[in-house]
């Protein structure tokens, strides 16, 4: 009997001890959680497909009161959808401490789809990717092209010139995908012609229109009268791809310079090279007139049949085209220079309309081509495609960069103290359950022993 009483006391002691230990451990754990920043791993199964699932996880995380004290860790195996990224960004902005771990393998890819400002309005597709690897380009119609892996592990920018495609455009590199849902409708920019009325301006405008350009012009007929072509407006790179100046004295050199600085093209042809207000802009100074060669308009070298200025290039100008000159050697007839983001091109020929009217039957076509090519020098195809404002281009053009911008750079690896948010055991999962089992078993054994002795 005495032994059994001792046993029962031991059981009670064990039960009470276990309960006390459990309470003490829970208290200690609670204090330590309050004192230090715990890492809590949030697993988003989302990535781009089940956005609603990811959004639900984020919503529950935000509602959890511990979200304000724990550092949330997102180990991402795929880039989240734009809306999920936006939610993460909003959490970041609201002050929730969060970090993310990059396990996507899709870092740094970006897609840009723009259209040329030229009449052809071709698509300029560019892809930036961090390392060499095969990439595939798709549009709504399917696969367009693919590029094999390069031999360098450095970031590369690759691109395509595509005459026609249908949005959305998607580029796939490894596990990464970037897409652009909308592509600008593609209204080609216009050309502004500044000239005095005359056959040169008339046929230059005609040639540019035959090359596909939409032309605006303002031709002063009298001191108070202006004849307009198209609907000329203020000089602006948003409306005009280039300005063609033929001969006009009434031209604002400062406005043209600002236009070129901002990326516009300027073409100075013939007598425009003698306009004083354009002296600081021109790639070449016109010195003296080279006479036309009689009858040459009907030969295979019709430009010899045009009068031309002899050009003295400015130091930063580059010769673009040389034709046979009057001194027994070739002379520069087209030159170009850069001003800011734009180009200024000079053409030496005067009265080019004679090429069309007085030349051979091919003169009409050749004259239009000549002007189209001169203008292309100022507005190169794709060479000066405008930068893309990501915010203005709906789509997912740079998902990784977007995530970094919203959530900050990723951490290298998950910290060892990271804890999972799965339901815990005991008091909030912080106290080993064995203590409670031990207490329950001890109390049960003590109770059974007492009952077997006939006590209550």
């Amino acid at each position, binding site marked *: 009997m005495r032994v059994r009483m001792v046993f029962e006391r031991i059981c009670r002691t064990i039960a009470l001890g276990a309960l006390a230990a459990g309470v003490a451990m829970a208290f200690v754990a609670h204090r330590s959680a309050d004192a230090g920043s715990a890492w809590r791993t949030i697993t988003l199964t989302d990535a781009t497909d089940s956005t609603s699932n990811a959004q639900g996880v984020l919503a529950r995380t935000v509602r959890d009161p511990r979200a304000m004290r724990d550092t949330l860790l997102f180990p991402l195996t795929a880039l989240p959808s734009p809306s999920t990224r936006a939610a993460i960004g909003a959490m970041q902005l609201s002050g929730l401490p969060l970090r993310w771990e990059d396990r996507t393998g899709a870092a740094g890819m970006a897609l840009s789809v723009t259209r040329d400002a030229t009449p052809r309005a071709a698509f300029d597709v560019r892809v930036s990717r961090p390392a060499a690897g095969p990439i595939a380009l798709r549009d709504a119609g399917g696969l367009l092209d693919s590029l094999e892996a390069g031999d360098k592990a450095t970031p590369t920018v690759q691109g395509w010139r595509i005459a026609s495609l249908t949005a959305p455009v998607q580029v796939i590199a490894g596990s990464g995908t970037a897409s652009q849902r909308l592509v600008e409708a593609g209204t080609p920019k216009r050309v502004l012609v500044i000239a*005095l*009325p*005359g*056959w*040169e*301006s*008339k*046929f230059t405008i*005609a040639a540019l*229109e*035959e090359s596909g350009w939409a032309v605006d*012009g303002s*031709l*002063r*007929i*009298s*001191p108070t*009268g202006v*004849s307009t*072509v198209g609907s000329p407006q203020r000089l602006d790179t948003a409306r005009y791809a280039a300005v063609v100046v033929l*001969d006009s*004295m009434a031209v604002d050199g400062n406005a043209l310079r600002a236009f070129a600085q901002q990326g516009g093209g300027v073409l100075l042809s013939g*007598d*425009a090279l*003698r*306009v*004083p207000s354009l002296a600081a802009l021109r790639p070449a100074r016109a010195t*003296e*007139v080279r006479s036309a060669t009689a009858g040459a308009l009907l030969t295979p070298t019709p430009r010899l049949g045009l009068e031309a200025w002899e050009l003295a290039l400015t130091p930063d100008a580059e010769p673009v085209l040389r034709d046979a000159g009057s001194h027994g050697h070739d002379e520069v007839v087209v030159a170009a220079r850069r001003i800011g983001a734009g180009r200024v091109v000079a053409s030496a020929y005067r*009265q080019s*309309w*004679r090429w*069309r*009217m*007085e030349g051979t*039957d091919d*003169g*009409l076509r050749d004259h239009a081509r000549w002007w189209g090519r001169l203008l292309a020098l100022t507005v190169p195809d794709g060479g000066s495609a405008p930068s893309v404002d990501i915010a203005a281009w709906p789509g997912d053009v740079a998902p990784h960069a977007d995530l970094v911008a919203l959530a900050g750079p990723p951490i290298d690896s998950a910290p060892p103290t990271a804890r999972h948010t799965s339901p815990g055991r005991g008091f909030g999962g912080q106290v080993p359950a064995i203590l409670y089992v031990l207490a329950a078993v001890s109390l049960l054994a003590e109770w059974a022993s007492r009952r077997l002795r006939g006590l209550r």
Partner: protein
Amino acid sequence: MIPPTATEPFVFATAQYESGDWDSAPLVPANVIDSVARYTSLPVRPQGVIVPLASEAAFQYPLLYLTGHLPVRFTTRESEVLTRYLARGGMLFVDDHNHDVDGAFHKTVREEIRRVAGPLTPLPNNHELYRCFFKFEDGPPTTSHEMNGWGDNLVHEHLDAVLRDGRISVLYSNKDYSSEWSFHPDNKRFLSIDNTKFGVNLVVYALTR
């Protein structure tokens, strides 16, 4: 010293053809030239030129004026030059000096124009030809020959044209501007309204469109 710019002056050219009387309105060029110089700042050569239609020289003058009373039959060479001239962007202004839709000039020259350029169609009275410098709200201005019942005794409501790429390639008039404008420019001072203003529009349109 080379001038900063030396814009070539406009030269009024009258087309000379082998059939008919191409020189029936010798004072028209001087009158139009006078009006262009009077109302605009366009450089213009004081004297016009006469250009044989059979000559390649026609290509030097992208605006040609053609008139007459008598039947017009272009030679093969004239047709060939005129076809190329129009295809390259030249503009031909033809005026019926008879002001008569039953006249020989009207019947024959329209047929010739159809052969070299295509059929003439009415030019809308709101065409930019009528507002590129002076404004003619009602289309082509009427002439005293229309109002006085001469010729076909009709007031022609519009001009006819052949358009090419949206531009007037051939402009045809039954209104007899050749008679209306055939006076010495000095006599404009006797007119309350200068009736040659439409000629300025014609030149401005040719130079700018």
